[in-house]
């Protein structure tokens, strides 16, 4: 069981028009993210994002144990959002998803738009929204920040899988009970999401001890003094 294999849609699951539709959604969303992330304005953002995309890519190569004999790996939506912000985080992960499709045939080419929407865009946006909403908790203590990171990791994974359910409802190729499909897909990803949440929380915890100034979520809020203590 690996989270990203389960979420990388292949060709043929969605019909052609839905595939094209989500391609357009992804492109539009990325254009907004590029503008809001000011990636073309600051000559430093893109090189840094390149290294952090490499970091996220490398993390996806790393398996961690979930249960004996079963391993998962980080997919990094919430981690990217908390560390880099929802915009640059989305840009980094979208490059990861595109390169995985082109270099490793991981995820179908026509499903690229849907895969980017789920993993690079929904995952980071929802992960960041959760973190932002729970900022009060993150502000209170270090444990609070870790709890928020855990929650963001869990919810972002579930959100990414929910994206698949929505896409299937629009352009799925078989007449199955959507409720049943949603139950299975979201249920499985809730379990995977626990692993994602734990790793996200511990990684954020390790970073906040040393360089709280590098964490987007912390940098852009008043939590800095508290968590650095």
């Amino acid at each position, binding site marked *: 069981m690996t989270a990203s294999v389960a979420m990388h849609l292949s060709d043929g699951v969605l019909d052609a028009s839905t595939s094209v539709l989500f391609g357009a959604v992804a492109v539009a969303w990325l254009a907004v993210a590029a503008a809001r992330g000011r990636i073309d304005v600051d000559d430093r953002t893109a090189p840094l994002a390149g290294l952090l995309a490499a970091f996220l890519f490398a993390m996806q190569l790393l398996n961690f144990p979930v249960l004996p004999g079963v391993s998962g790996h980080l997919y990094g939506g919430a981690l990217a959002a908390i560390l880099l912000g929802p915009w640059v985080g989305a840009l980094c992960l979208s490059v990861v998803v595109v390169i995985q499709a082109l270099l490793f045939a991981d995820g179908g080419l026509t499903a690229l738009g849907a895969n980017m929407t789920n993993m690079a865009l929904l995952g980071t946006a929802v992960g960041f929204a959760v973190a932002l909403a729970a900022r009060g908790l993150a502000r209170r203590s270090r444990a609070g920040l870790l709890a928020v990171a855990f929650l963001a990791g869990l919810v972002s994974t579930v959100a990414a899988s929910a994206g698949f359910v929505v896409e299937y409802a629009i352009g799925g190729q078989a007449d199955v009970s959507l409720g049943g499909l949603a139950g299975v897909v979201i249920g499985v990803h809730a379990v995977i999401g626990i692993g994602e949440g734990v790793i996200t929380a511990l990684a954020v*915890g*390790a970073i906040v*001890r*040393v*360089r709280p100034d590098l964490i987007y979520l912390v940098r852009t809020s008043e939590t800095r003094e508290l968590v650095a203590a």
Partner: protein
Amino acid sequence: MGGGRVAGVSALDVRGLTYRYPDGTAVLHGIDLHVEPGERVAVLGPNGAGKTTFVLHLNGVLTGTGHIEVAGLPLSPDTMREIRRRVGVVFQDPDDQLFMPTVADDVAFGPANFGVTEPELGERVRAALSAVGMAEHADRSPMHLSEGQRRRVALATVLASDPELLVLDEPSANLEPVARRELAEVLLSLDRTMLMVTHDLPYALQLCPRAVLIDNGVVVADGPTRDLLADADLLAAHRLELPWGFVPQP
């Protein structure tokens, strides 16, 4: 601490060690090495000679064929854990070795994994940090230390498990002169059996009375370090040379 030496048992005994990469390339072609307790041995050789691959066999991270015995205990899947405690490896880049939030956490990581509990754990951490002169930095993050300090903390993370054999991979790499000397002084003060993999020949001569030269996966020379370094033909044949201006003192 002191490694609990047993009379008559050698610290390290390697016989006929061979290894191939998964792709079939042979790296080690039958290494034999025998180290007595308390010896300090330099493992010399050019890049690509198989030095680091050899080191990773000593604690079972890589598994080739042949026989490895550490302080009388043969390496096997059953003894792996105890072998890893007995063989303390200090890797070349301290950044690879230090990953915990504080220096003390990092030093406690090994012994805690090997089952040491408080209050002994805290005692081990204090002793190991004192041995490398880093006791006052226990609560800092390793990321905030200088290269020389990180190297010494990496050494402490291994000392805390009280290993029978200390293995150092390129300990002097990237150190400024003072840090380099300080590390040498720490290593000389430890009184441990030591294997030092390096291409820094002056450092080998300073620290290790004996040296073995590995090239193409076999031991091609074994003797007093001074004699090996005096043999210009031998060094040249294995792409080694003394640095400009270095004169081994008589």
